[in-house]
């Protein structure tokens, strides 16, 4: 009885990993995306080393153009824009990682429950549909209005917006996987529900979710910047790309560097994530895997 071949995700995972790496790095665009992201992560992690104090003001040197002392110039109260952009990278990465983590946790639990327990499906998914009926940024603005400005609240608000999208993807995969014969076999063997879901269903619905991950990350970085730009995101003293842009908007004629540098930082980050995400999707999405290889 116990010899029935239950999938061992760990063992296949270990063997597949290097092959993934080879496949992932084979396409130059994916590699470029990974390099950009690595660069951003290092800038974010090394912020205290490569940047100065982002809150230090030199009022005498306000709105100074980029120079050797201030690579990206200074803002309206004489703060060093380079330091602020570098610390902004840290914030964006923090928000991105936290939102992906939180929305995956909530979205996966809801998706697994809705997909596996058919009686709960309707209730859970109607709530998710209701949340998805709001445009992302509008719901995020409304949640920020209720929660108040803080970094934690920004993370919570964006995670609430993106959890239903993760839940929907997970549910879709679960619906297919729960009908497969190996799940049926496991159930026949008397495997308890939590074990069945956690060990047999979950690992097999991960790949579409991982693909979602890079896009949720990008969306989180964008949404944080947009919220902070609108003045309803992080508090104004936190160095965020959106906050710098909002200040830069007021001085766009005298100090275009206030808009250009944080702008380039946002673009590069999203561009890197998109390149990487596209590569990941071509690799992991079974529906288009055929196309991807055909193209090569």
């Amino acid at each position, binding site marked *: 009885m116990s010899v029935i071949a239950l999938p061992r995700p760990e063992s296949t995972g270990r063997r597949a990993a290097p092959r993934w790496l080879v496949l992932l790095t084979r396409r130059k665009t994916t590699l470029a995306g990974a390099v950009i992201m690595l660069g951003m992560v290092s800038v974010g992690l090394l912020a205290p080393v490569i940047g100065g104090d982002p809150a230090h003001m030199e009022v005498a040197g306000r709105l100074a153009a980029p120079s050797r002392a201030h690579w990206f110039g200074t803002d309206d109260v004489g703060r060093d824009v380079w330091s602020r952009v570098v610390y902004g990278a840290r914030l964006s990465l923090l928000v991105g990682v936290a939102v992906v983590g939180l929305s995956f946790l909530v979205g996966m639990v809801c998706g697994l429950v809705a997909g596996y327990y058919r009686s709960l499906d309707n209730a859970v998914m*109607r*709530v998710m*549909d*209701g*949340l998805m*009926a*709001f*445009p*992302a*940024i*509008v*719901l995020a*603005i*409304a*949640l*920020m*209005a*209720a*929660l*108040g400005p803080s970094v934690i609240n920004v993370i919570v608000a964006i995670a609430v917006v993106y959890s239903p999208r993760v839940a929907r993807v997970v549910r879709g995969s679960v619906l297919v996987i729960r009908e497969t014969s190996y799940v049926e076999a496991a159930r026949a063997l008397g495997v308890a529900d939590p074990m069945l879901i956690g060990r047999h269903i979950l690992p097999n619905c991960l790949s579409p979710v991982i693909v979602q991950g890079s896009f949720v990350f990008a969306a989180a970085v*964008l949404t944080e*910047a*947009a919220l902070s*730009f*609108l*003045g*309803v995101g992080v508090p104004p003293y936190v160095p965020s790309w959106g906050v710098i*842009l909002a200040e*830069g*908007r007021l001085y*766009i*004629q005298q100090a*275009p560097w206030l*808009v*250009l540098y944080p*702008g380039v930082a*946002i*673009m590069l980050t*999203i*561009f890197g994530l*998109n*390149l990487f995400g*596209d590569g990941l999707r071509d690799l992991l999405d079974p529906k288009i895997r055929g*196309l991807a290889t055909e*193209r090569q």
Partner: protein
Amino acid sequence: MKTYIARRLLALIPVALVVATVSFVLIHLAPGDPASVIAGPDASADDVQRIQRQLGLDAPLPVQLVRWYGRLVRGDLGESIFLRMPVTAAILDRVEPTLLLTLFSIAIAVVVGVPAGVLSARYHNTATDQALMAVALLGVSIPNFLLGLLFILFFSVWLGWFPVAGYSPLEYGWAKTLRSLVLPAFALGLVQSALIARIARSSMLDVLREQFITAGRAKGLGERAVVYKHALKNAMIPTVTIIGISFAILISGAVVVETVFNIPGLGRLIIAAVLRRDYPVIQGVVLCIAFLYMLINLAVDLSYVLFDPRVRYQ
């Protein structure tokens, strides 16, 4: 078809209920008593009580919820605390620039995006394709508010071609209105056209692999007829979906871009309301946009029938 539409409309009801409930909950998510949050830290006890009465916050929660549904059914969104006017009137006042901006930008998105995607698919794997797709990928990586700021910098500050910001209402002539909306509409529309181009390209590529395309070529049809007549029509189905979704995305994008260009639309209304803690306005605008979003998505689903005779709704 009629039963299908009826069924889809009925299916909207639970979603609409959730949407209404979420908007109701918003005001109660705020830590502490909503009335004192709205009144601000310096308010007197009288002020707090007045707001409590005005918003009906003194009733038990279930009663408040039922009253909220009842008011929504009657189209009553309550009274703005700050503007001292009905929320519906405030929304109607501000809806013109947002709608015009959205329509203008969807036109730009479609006119740029669909041909770019189709060309890219027709000249698949050539330099044209790669260049177009590189631009499109760059396009989806620029947030619309950033593109708006860059446009202001280049076209208004440096070149002086367009006003830096502001909006000219329709009553002062449509030409002026159009001029004031050119930069914001391009900022919104170009970003969206990148997305549309990517989808249009991939659905064209899928269709071009179909057997009827090979059959068309085999019977001697010119490449033009194959691509623009037979393939394009079939590739339009996913493209129409994405155009519909774009429309919905653009309404919310307009909310952000309005801030960049100081356009007095729904976006400015909701942001100002957030900063003043004017919850009835926030709830009203959010609900309004969410319902619009739902109706657009419904319209998109129904439009499939027009493009694909194989789709017959039971």
